[in-house]
Structure formats: structure tokens, C-alpha cells
């Protein structure tokens, strides 16, 4: 349902962040993307919802071309793709509920959203999304008053409120401590399994990638260098993806998972 065909991204300045990538991700998969800093992980994720346009090749989502979409079509494609960010990207001054309602913008008439008069059924969807990540009691609390882990769950609820077919998560646990990282990753895993939402997660840490990645995609210098199951991805594979031996910085827990 997500297909990259010879997809390349060259940023202004000449950095080749993706090089002729061919990749297919099926409906309902949980894919973890790994690679060194600068390998192109964020670029790959952002190409799926068109936040980063391709310079060559094509990306299609559910059979529709992201690359050739008009602005209106692009908004429509995006409405079916939830996104979760490393730094949460919440409006900190406003309530948790208002943040989650951002996920309902695509279904809300402009005048309603401008006046912040969301339909009761949209508020209900937002509340259910908060229930799913276990923080509905914080609905009317200011987002800035939440802990990092709670803020990321608001981010997940915002993505869920879109009722998406796909969720993209760009290093969702990089700003969190190890126990909280596992809580958030388990939330994503549960959402993938229970709701069948295709989930693509960028991760820095190998042990997390191996635990949660049913399928692991490895990038190096913008090229696909590994595509296989998490179980197959042993230390040798990761050394190849990283192009160097592994260090304690590559794992979340103090002792290396290998």
C-alpha cells in the first residue's frame, strides 16, 4: 500500500538523502527503519506524506501518487496518515484535547475549526483516542503541564484521532527515558495489532528495533541496505547497516542486547 519506486531526494545544497530507493510496505505491517544519523530515515518517513518532496521517482500511498498529487489531493492523502514526532510538536499553551482535535481538522468545516467549534462526534473521537493511550483524565490539562511520556501519548492520540490507515513515527522515543520509551513503543505496537494500522517507526536504538520491528529496513547513505525480519537482524546485520562495530550508544539499555 506504500510503494517507493526509484525514489530519490536531493536537498538544496546537494545532499543525497535518498538514492533510488525501491520499497514496498504492505497494509498492517509494523516496520522499523534504522540507520546512522544522516542515513535518510527522516527523509524516508517524510516522503510518505509529502512533507519532503521527491526529486526523482515516485511514492504512492494506497495506489495514489504522493509525488504527483495536487495540494488538495495531498491534504486528502495526509488526512489518512497520522504522524508522531520526536519533539512531540504539541501546542503547549493549549489543552490536551485541543491538541488531539488537530487530528480532526481534515473532517471539520473550516469555519468550525476557525471558531474552535468542533462537532460533538469529533470531540468524541478525540476522547476515545485519549482513552486508548490512557490519559483521558488529562483532556482539559494544558499540554505543557504533562511529562514527556504523557506528551508523546498526546501526540499518538492526535495521530489516532485522524482515524488513519498509516502511522508514521520519526524517532518517537528519542526524547524519553528507557522505561517510558518502552511504554510508548508498546502503545504503538498495540495500535498496530489491534487497529491494523500500518506503522512505520524510525528508531535509533538497535535493541528497541529488534524488539518492536517485525520488519526492519536498514538505510545507509540514503540507500536501502537491509530489508528483513527483526529476528534475522543479528549484530552482524547491524554492523553492516552502520558500517562500523556497535557501541553502547547504539542500544537503549545499559547492557547491549546482543
Amino acid at each position: 500500500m506504500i510503494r517507493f519506486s526509484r525514489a530519490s531526494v536531493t536537498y538544496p545544497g546537494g545532499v543525497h538523502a535518498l538514492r533510488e530507493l525501491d520499497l514496498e510496505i504492505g497494509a498492517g505491517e509494523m516496520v522499523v527503519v534504522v540507520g546512522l544519523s544522516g542515513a535518510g530515515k527522516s527523509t524516508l518517513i517524510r516522503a510518505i506524506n509529502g512533507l519532503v518532496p521527491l526529486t526523482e521517482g515516485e511514492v504512492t500511498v494506497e495506489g495514489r501518487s504522493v509525488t504527483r498529487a495536487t495540494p488538495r489531493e495531498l491534504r486528502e492523502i495526509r488526512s489518512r496518515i497520522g504522524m508522531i514526532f520526536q519533539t512531540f510538536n504539541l501546542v503547549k499553551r493549549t489543552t490536551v484535547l485541543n491538541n488531539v482535535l488537530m487530528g480532526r481538522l481534515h473532517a471539520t468545516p473550516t469555519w468550525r475549526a476557525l471558531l474552535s467549534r468542533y462537532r460533538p462526534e469529533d470531540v468524541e473521537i478525540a476522547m476515545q483516542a485519549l482513552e486508548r493511550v490512557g490519559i483521558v483524565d488529562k483532556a482539559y490539562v494544558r499540554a505543557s503541564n504533562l511529562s514527556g511520556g504523557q506528551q508523546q501519548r498526546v501526540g499518538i492520540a492526535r495521530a489516532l484521532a485522524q482515524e488513519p490507515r498509516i502511522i508514521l513515527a520519526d524517532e518517537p522515543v528519542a526524547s524519553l527515558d528507557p522505561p517510558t520509551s518502552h511504554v510508548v513503543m508498546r502503545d504503538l505496537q498495540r495500535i498496530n495489532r489491534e487497529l491494523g494500522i500500518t506503522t512505520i517507526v524510525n528508531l535509533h536504538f538497535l535493541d528497541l528495533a529488534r524488539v518492536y520491528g517485525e520488519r526492519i529496513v536498514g538505510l545507509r547513505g540514503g540507500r536501502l541496505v537491509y530489508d528483513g525480519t527483526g529476528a534475522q537482524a543479528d549484530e552482524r546485520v547491524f554492523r553492516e547497516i552502520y558500517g562500523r562495530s556497535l557501541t553502547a550508544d547504539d542500544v537503549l539499555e545499559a547492557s547491549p542486547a546482543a
Partner: protein
Amino acid sequence: MTAAAATPVRSARPAKPRPSLAVPLGVLGFLVLTYWAASEEFGIGFDLPAILGDLTRGAGIIGEILRPDWTFLPATVEPMLETLQMAIIASVIGCATALPVSFIASRVTTPGVAAYFVGRGILNVIRALPDLLYAMIFVAAVSIGPLAGILALVFFNLGVVAKLLSETVDGVDQGPMEAARAAGANRALTIRTGVFPQILPNYVAYSLYVFELNVRASTVIGIVGAGGIGNVLNAQMKFFAYERVGVVIVELFVLVFVIELISIQLRRRLV
């Protein structure tokens, strides 16, 4: 672990950057400019002792102002209310217009490069003209009266608020905008949900500030006949009726003070 702590890996210390010349040059430039402005030969001939001598001449006037003639109070009520009404109307129109303009004139939210430069350019022109000049223009255009004053104040407010607000928008956290865009929101809704909540406290503060400026500016623009208490003030000054001028000054002082109290309350509630 402990061995590593005892002999930490250290890269070579960087050389201390050379001290920048910007600060001493800036101070020097400032001193030269001040001398140029104040000196006898190039500037206005600023002479402190002479000014202090001149000030005593004003003592008589100040003495009269300090003994306000309160029987004049009833005659000032209506123009004072007119000033207040002008200030309210001008603030509402000016600040409402400033909001969309500031989004166009900010790099973060502008719909395009062309719109950005046009917006900035217009704002700079609007702000380049002082409120008194606007009053003169609109008195000429729509004749003497409060309408001219309101129009002058609207432009004055638009210039101030849109400038301050567009700079506030420049500095917002762009993460929420990205989130809204990723969720399929159009430009208007991205700004409404991702930017507006972040700038709301500033917007309220700027609006209250220009409202207060309006009350004060109305005394100046009244001089050219743009309505309100300024007309009264101007007339009494012409007759050297400083006891009456004193009444107006006290009233203005109280009014500005009350506005300040109210705006402090409003801002506290919003932060």
C-alpha cells in the same frame, strides 16, 4: 568505567576567539552621533544650563496647571467620551486588520515570497508616517471630526500591532504547524491551530497597548481637528487657560491609569 572517568577523553581546547570589534566601534559611533546631534556647530546646540534657566519661565504655567479649574469639568465629559469611543473603534478595526496582515508579513506563515515583501513594504510605509500626519490627511479627506480621527488611529494601530505581531509569529515554535500540515490541514487551519494559540497572549497585550496609545494620541490629533478631547485641549491652550488644561490633563491621567489597571488584569488572566 572508573578508569574512563579518571582519564576523560578530551579534545584539544579551542583557541579563544578574537574579541569582536563590533562593541567598541558601536560605542564610538554612538558617542560621535551624540556629539554631532548636540554640538553648537553641527547640531542643535544643546546647552544644559540654558535649558534649566528656560525652565523657570514655565514655572508660572505649571503653577496654573496644578490649580485646575474644576468648574470646567462638565464641559469636558462629552469630548472625553468621544475620545474613548474613537479609541475603542480604532483599536477594534486596527487590531482585527493587523492579525491577518501579520501572518502575511511573517516568514513563517506567509503564503508566498511576493506576498511577504508586499506585506512588509506596506507595513513599513504605514509605520513611517506619524499619527499627526495621518490626522491631517484624513481631516483633509473627510473633513474635521471624529471620523478623521478614527481613520488616523486605525492606520497608526495597524502599523504598530502588525509589526510587533509579525515578529512574534517569526519566533513561534514551528512544530505544531508541521503537525497540523501532516494531519492534512490547509494553510488557514494550520495557522489557526498551530500558530494562533501561541501568539494570543502577545496579541492581547499589543492590542491593549495601542488602545492606551490611542487615548493619548487623541490629544495630539485633536490639534488638527480630528475630534475628541484634543480639540478642547487645543482650544484652551490657545486662550492660555492653563487651569482648564490642568483639568484635562488630570482626566487623561486617570483614564490612562484605569486602562492600565484593566489591561494588567486581562493579561494576567491570559498568560
